[in-house]
């Protein structure tokens, strides 16, 4: 079996959620099939600038083919288009323009897919919202396996995506919440399975080494990820200030990740910057609890990693996926306001009554659903099923040049509000 993994960025040093997800899946599937990665030369997701060398290279045993991005993203233009589509009635033409401005626009990549479609059994597209996935699925619908990595944001309410979701041969969801959302949005009834992704969990961690190396003497909660307002970090800082005032002898907060937001100067907040994977796992193992404040997550790999290491998590209850995972796994608590944040953090301290028990449940949940053998088997089962069954869903024709200019689409945010929300408990 020959597979192509199509993703917007790819590299050993690229740590974005969907990109890392794609790399892990490509490397794991390479053990069972011939895998090629088709991607762009971009490294920066905000500009899609061509930074990486064109041509082929091999990363961890997987062949990677890079194609140039023809047009960089213009941040202001993209922001204007996004606001217009999310908040105003518009046409499909506006949405297609939005998609082109979002990028990464790489006609060479699409040409390559069209030319070599017969060489591959299946194309696994990552991130439904990007240019390559939308047009790529349109080129090879009968061979398209989509990993949408969808979050509950207004993009889901746009009109161009439901036909594309319906056209894909199969969908590999990250969570039951994502499945409910996308099926309600697209009315899709085709093959699909909730898979998610595993992680490269080290067999042994050294929390004491990490504590000594970083001079951490007090117990702490850890946040791992981009320190960004979109990740809920501003709210995290506000809430932690109040927690620190209410619980003077409570946990410190250790932040790991690149800084895109001013970190408040507080004696109990430490920012360690970008660290190696070894340090990241040691930090999680050394912590009492992992905090995930992001309101938009399609899976949160770091949450799964914390569970794999037996640590409980405290997540933002505004994110259906995280909240659902906590409820289903029994591996963490969630908060919806500052009082719940303080109480939750207080309860999850290692010396508290429930931190260890929740951590154990999280660990069991991880190994039951997100360990690599389980993930690989789900992918292989789906691919075998698709190879067995004939393709029945032809690509839906796009509206004509005139029809797509009618302003019939409601604001995307309004559409999103009509879609089902909340965690899937069972």
């Amino acid at each position: 079996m020959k597979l192509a993994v199509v993703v917007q960025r790819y590299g050993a040093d690229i740590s974005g959620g969907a990109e890392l997800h794609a790399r892990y899946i490509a490397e794991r599937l390479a053990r069972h099939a011939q895998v090629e990665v088709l991607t762009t030369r971009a490294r920066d997701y905000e500009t899609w600038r061509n930074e990486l060398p064109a041509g082929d290279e091999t990363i961890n045993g997987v062949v990677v083919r890079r194609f140039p991005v023809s047009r960089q993203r213009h941040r202001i233009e993209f922001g204007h288009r996004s606001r217009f589509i999310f908040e105003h009635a518009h046409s499909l033409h506006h949405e297609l323009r939005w998609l082109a401005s979002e990028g990464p626009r790489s006609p060479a990549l699409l040409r390559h897919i069209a030319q070599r479609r017969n060489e591959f059994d299946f194309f696994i597209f990552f991130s439904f919202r990007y240019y390559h996935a939308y047009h790529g699925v349109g080129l090879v619908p009968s061979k398209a396996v989509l990993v949408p990595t969808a979050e509950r944001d207004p993009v889901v309410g746009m009109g161009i995506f439901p036909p594309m979701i319906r056209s894909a041969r199969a969908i590999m969801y990250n969570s039951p919440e994502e499945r409910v959302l996308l099926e309600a949005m697209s009315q899709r009834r085709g093959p699909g399975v909730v898979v998610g992704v595993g992680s490269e969990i080290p067999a042994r961690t050294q929390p004491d080494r990490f504590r000594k190396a970083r001079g951490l003497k007090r117990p702490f909660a850890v946040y791992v990820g981009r320190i960004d307002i979109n990740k809920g970090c501003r709210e995290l800082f506000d809430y932690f200030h109040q927690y620190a005032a209410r619980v003077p002898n409570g946990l410190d907060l250790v932040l790991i990740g690149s800084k895109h937001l001013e970190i408040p100067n507080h004696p109990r907040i430490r920012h360690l910057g970008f660290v190696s994977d070894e340090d990241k796992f040691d930090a999680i193992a050394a912590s009492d609890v992992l905090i995930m404040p992001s309101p938009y997550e399609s899976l949160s790999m770091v949450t799964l990693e914390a569970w794999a290491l037996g640590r409980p998590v405290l997540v933002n209850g505004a994110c259906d996926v995280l909240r659902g995972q906590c409820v289903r796994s029994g591996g963490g608590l969630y908060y919806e306001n500052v009082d719940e944040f303080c109480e939750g953090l207080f309860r999850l301290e290692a010396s508290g009554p429930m931190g260890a028990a929740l951590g154990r449940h999280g660990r069991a949940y991880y190994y039951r659903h997100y360990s690599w053998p389980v993930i690989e088997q789900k992918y292989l089962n789906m691919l075998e099923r698709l190879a067995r069954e004939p393709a029945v869903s032809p690509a839906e024709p796009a509206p004509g040049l005139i029809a797509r200019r009618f302003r019939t689409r409601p604001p995307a945010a309004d559409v999103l509000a009509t879609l089902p929300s909340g965690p899937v408990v069972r």
Partner: protein
Amino acid sequence: MSDLNVKSDSIDVEQIMKQIRSRIREKRGSDYTETELQQLASAKFEQFADPSGLRSDLLEQFRKRGDEPSTYHRHRGVRRWLLMMLHPVLKRVQKQVMSDLNLYFEIIHNLVIEVTKLGVENHNLKMKVESLSSRLDFDERRGRALEGAVQYRQPRQHQPQHQAQPPQPQQQHRPAAPPPAAPAPIQAAAAAATTQVISAVAAPLVQGEQTAPAQPGQEGAPRGDGSGRRRRRRRRRRPGSALADSPNAQGSSEGAGGNDAGDHGDNGDDGAADQ
């Protein structure tokens, strides 16, 4: 805490969250939902806008306005015709004015809601401040009690010969009166307790309640012959004094008859037990 303990085998996160929320409600007292807040806000707003509470009858007039004949019907002839001709323009202006008014109304309403929220928050904060100040008072009292306790931690040696000395007549004219001392039986009890912590803590509490100024001529009253002053000078020169030599303890010991020890050598014993 008991209701928040979890069994390892059965964790229901939703149940835990319910418990956490109920605990928060217990802590904060009555909590207001968004609907309740809206009701509170509207009630206050109505109260404010109620004409009975105000001297003006503006609200009543405003309500009556709807029943009045329209602007055009109040006029006749050319004026009425002119007004009707200008109707589209006037209507447009009126619409604009009305939308502005609606906007202002909404802003005021939102402000009232915010003020109500702030009022509730203020109430909660006041409660918190009260709670904290009571805790602070308690801690201060406890701190004072513990500070007083250290006077009795040193074991005192019994020197009965000091009791035999009669009080000097000059004692009555001594200008600098020492701090009040505990009555003799209590001091004796405290001394007997020696270094036990319980008695050390209990003694000052009793002392605080029963302390009375020593009268001249009684045991424990300061001497007027200057021996007390000599004793003080000697003790100040001595380096490395214990807690009992602190100014607080010194004054107390003098008042309790400790000055007697100073009359009979440099043994350094305080007179707390010299009864």
